[in-house]
């Protein structure tokens, strides 16, 4: 067990435990806060995978953007009297059975498949390479995503503003 392994298990446990709470807690606000820890854990895993830029983007976009958006969603769709906003659950038994089987199947696929491992050379920073790739090989996708974001922005605004007839 070296530091790398310890860190990995630490982050894996943070991620999975908080994800577990996200999907089981009945309180919506708690759920959102556990999601925060999940995102941080995943960001830690990215760092261990030598993807520093993705980790930063993960924190900025997911924590800074999407999570805030979700919190707004929670608050705008409930009559807020206290933080104790409950969310009901349905088909608990059948769902846990189903996802349990799914998890078993997926995990066994992951473990028993003979992956071709060929470690890539680790760069001290990936930002420069990623930036160059974004504006060369991936420039079309990059521009398209820009347009997509614009459309999403306009679409979201127009959908949310629509008045009830």
């Amino acid at each position, binding site marked *: 067990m070296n530091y790398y392994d310890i860190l990995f298990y630490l982050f894996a446990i943070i991620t999975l435990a908080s994800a577990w709470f996200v999907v089981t807690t009945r309180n919506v606000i708690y759920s959102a806060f556990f999601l925060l820890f999940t995102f941080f854990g995943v960001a830690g895993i990215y760092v261990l995978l030598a993807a520093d830029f*993705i980790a930063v983007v993960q924190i900025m976009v997911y924590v800074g953007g999407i999570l805030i958006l979700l919190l707004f969603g929670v608050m705008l769709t409930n009559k807020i009297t206290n933080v104790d906003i409950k969310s009901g659950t*349905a088909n608990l038994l059948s769902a846990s059975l189903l996802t349990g089987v799914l998890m078993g199947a997926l995990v066994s696929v992951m473990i028993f498949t003979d992956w071709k491992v060929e470690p890539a050379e680790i760069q001290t920073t990936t930002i420069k390479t990623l930036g160059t790739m974004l504006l060369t090989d991936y420039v079309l996708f990059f521009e398209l995503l820009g347009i997509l974001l614009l459309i999403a922005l306009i679409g979201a605004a127009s959908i949310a503003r629509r008045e009830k007839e």
Partner: protein
Amino acid sequence: MLQVGLTHFLVVSAILFSLGVYGIVTRKNAVMVLMGIELVLNAANINFVAFSRFSGFGLGGQMTALFVIVLAAAEAAIALAIVLNIYKQFTNVNIDEIDHLKD
């Protein structure tokens, strides 16, 4: 225990994915369902980055992960707009009660 390698990351991602699906299937609140979807996307992203690190494809996997994050942001915005609209229409966001598609 084994030296931490590709398989470990993939297993974490598989478990995260299953938890996300569990969240999607069981929660009634539409916003909570969205949280489940975010978990699923994160699981997929871990896979991309892990393969990018261990399988000699270069940084293409990281690039894809980046694009997935962008798409997730767009998706969250649109989905929440729709949820707000549903809330206006039905004054609740419990998706098991919104089943007009059946009729």
